[in-house]
């Protein structure tokens, strides 16, 4: 792609300092630091869907929240159309968030229970001055129509809707600002399987008609593969592999991507395995190992993996952060 990226994430790091307990302070133990993101590099192209996958605690939600401006990264930069958007305040922040909106995972807590759908949408429209006067009401109807909510939904409260319908309201609220980019943090993972497809179809359709850029953060690999043009695999706060969705899922390069794909249950009973795809557990982000973050669980790890953190470099159809990217079997 020769286009300029819409969003560029440069060496982004995010550390949370845990409050020190009195006992720790007395013993002069250092404060515990959670390293949620460790140098994430990412370009998001206009109009694409970038899938971000990883296990819980890998930092994918933190990344989403940093991009939406909810968390302020401790180091690194986020560029939107070439301009830094880290730590924006007031009107500039409002202007940025008009362009970049976020949708949340939990349909039960992401809507204000005491506001009707109309109240919530009108508020978003008027705060940003998207419409005025009678046009506000018309726009509310338009938005509800866009996300296929039944007529008469406007004057109901969130608790009167099903989970899937609430996520549609969340989408409508984000679309009220006519954004360029949507960050979807586990948009459907709280929904029943039979309802997920409805919401995913809607998202893809809206993206095509409105020309949106979407960051699709999720742990469901099948869904990510289906909706994303490109996919980034995150492990312990760093991207280990990124590339076009098809080749990445068909021939993953990084050992972690391989393990993750192999561990995902398959609908094909012929693909049954007796052995788990990968042993061990995710190390604590309180204590990120030196070198390659994956070396503790990696079947191919060598001496260099314990010492040096591998950088992302071309491998397969995309980029992978592995010292042995070329040497691995099947690479």
């Amino acid at each position, binding site marked *: 792609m020769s286009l300029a990226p819409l969003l560029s994430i440069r060496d982004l790091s995010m550390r949370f300092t845990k409050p020190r307990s009195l006992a720790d302070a007395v013993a002069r133990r250092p404060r515990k630091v959670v390293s949620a993101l460790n140098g994430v590099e990412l370009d998001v192209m206009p109009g694409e869907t970038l899938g971000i996958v990883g296990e819980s605690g890998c930092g994918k939600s933190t990344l989403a929240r940093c991009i939406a401006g*909810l968390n302020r990264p401790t180091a690194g930069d986020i560029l939107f159309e070439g301009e830094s958007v880290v730590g924006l305040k007031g009107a500039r922040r409002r202007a940025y968030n008009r362009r970049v909106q976020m949708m949340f995972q939990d349909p039960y*807590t*992401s*809507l204000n229970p*005491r506001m009707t759908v109309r109240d919530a949408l009108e508020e978003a429209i008027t705060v*940003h001055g998207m419409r005025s006067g009678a046009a506000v009401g018309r726009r509310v109807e338009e938005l509800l129509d866009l996300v296929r909510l039944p007529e008469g939904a406007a004057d*109901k409260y969130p*608790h009167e809707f099903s989970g899937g319908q609430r996520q549609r309201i969340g989408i409508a*609220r984000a679309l009220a*600002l006519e954004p360029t980019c949507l960050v979807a943090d586990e948009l459907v993972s709280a929904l029943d399987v039979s309802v997920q497809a409805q919401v995913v179809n809607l998202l893809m359709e809206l993206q095509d008609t409105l020309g949106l850029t979407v960051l699709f953060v999720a742990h469901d690999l099948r869904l990510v593969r289906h909706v994303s043009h490109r996919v980034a695999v995150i492990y312990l706060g760093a991207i280990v592999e990124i590339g076009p969705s098809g080749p990445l899922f068909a021939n993953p390069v990084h050992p972690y991507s391989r393990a993750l794909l192999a561990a995902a249950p398959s609908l094909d009973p012929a693909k049954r395995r007796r052995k788990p795809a990968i042993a061990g557990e995710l190390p604590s982000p309180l204590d990120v190992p030196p070198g390659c973050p994956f070396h503790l669980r990696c079947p191919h790890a060598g001496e260099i993996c314990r010492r040096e953190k591998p950088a992302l470099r071309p491998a397969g159809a995309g980029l992978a952060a592995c010292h042995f990217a070329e040497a691995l079997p099947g690479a």
Partner: protein
Amino acid sequence: MSAVTLPAARPSRLKAFLARAFAKPAFVTGFAILVLSLALALFPGVLAPYDPLAFDLDAIQQGPSLAHLFGTDNFGRDMLSRVIWAYSVDMQMAFFATVFALLIGVTTGAIVGYYGGIADMIFGRCVDAIITFPFLVLVIAIVAVLGPGLVNMYVAITAVNWVYYARLTRAEIMAQKANDYAAAGRVLGYSDTRIIFRHLLPNAISPVIVYWMTDMALAILLGSSLGYLGLGAQPPAAEWGVLIAEGRNFLMTAWWMSLTPGIAIVVTGLGFSLLGDALADLLRPKGR
């Protein structure tokens, strides 16, 4: 009721709420007591059978009778009329001793709960400083400095009481803040003021309202106690605490002088408590 300015969904929701409320015996009882108390407080002149300050030296310390349902005091004043006139003072106390604490406390609590950080730490130390003193002792000390009287009593109670509202509001706001709708508000570019007062507070306020109801009952007790001690309402104004204090010298001979205002305190307090309990039940959010 005029529905012109309200969207169609609202009146039916209010109606549904009232229907649920009036199906609760506790709500009905509390509501009835408070409506009656309010009527007595607003129109004592109409409802009291006698002038509360008129001496009748022919009828000194008479026991309850048809002419004087609550008996008379040591100056022959009709106790029923005095208890009724006291309603306006005591209901006023219930309201004014709490409403400023409510406003100050809720605003402070909402702000420190939302922002946290240094403001919250300073707030925490203030709370610690105030709640280490027994409530009554602190109020009496402040009144002692300011001088006795109703207004000074309101100031003294508010100065201590706001802390309790602030603590409660802070905790509720912090719990609500963890919900994604607060984060959504930030991503939607809403100002902090809007998020705090339009989104978080309406979801956090129910327990505070419930506490306020009980607190109004406590305020009557507190005001009466201060009146009894001579630090609140001043004689010859009729106030339940003052009335009980006046009767204490005659407990053996004219028990009704202290008992009847005492009953008024208990009944009114019960009204507030019942209403508070019922509201706590009613305001609990439905579903998840």
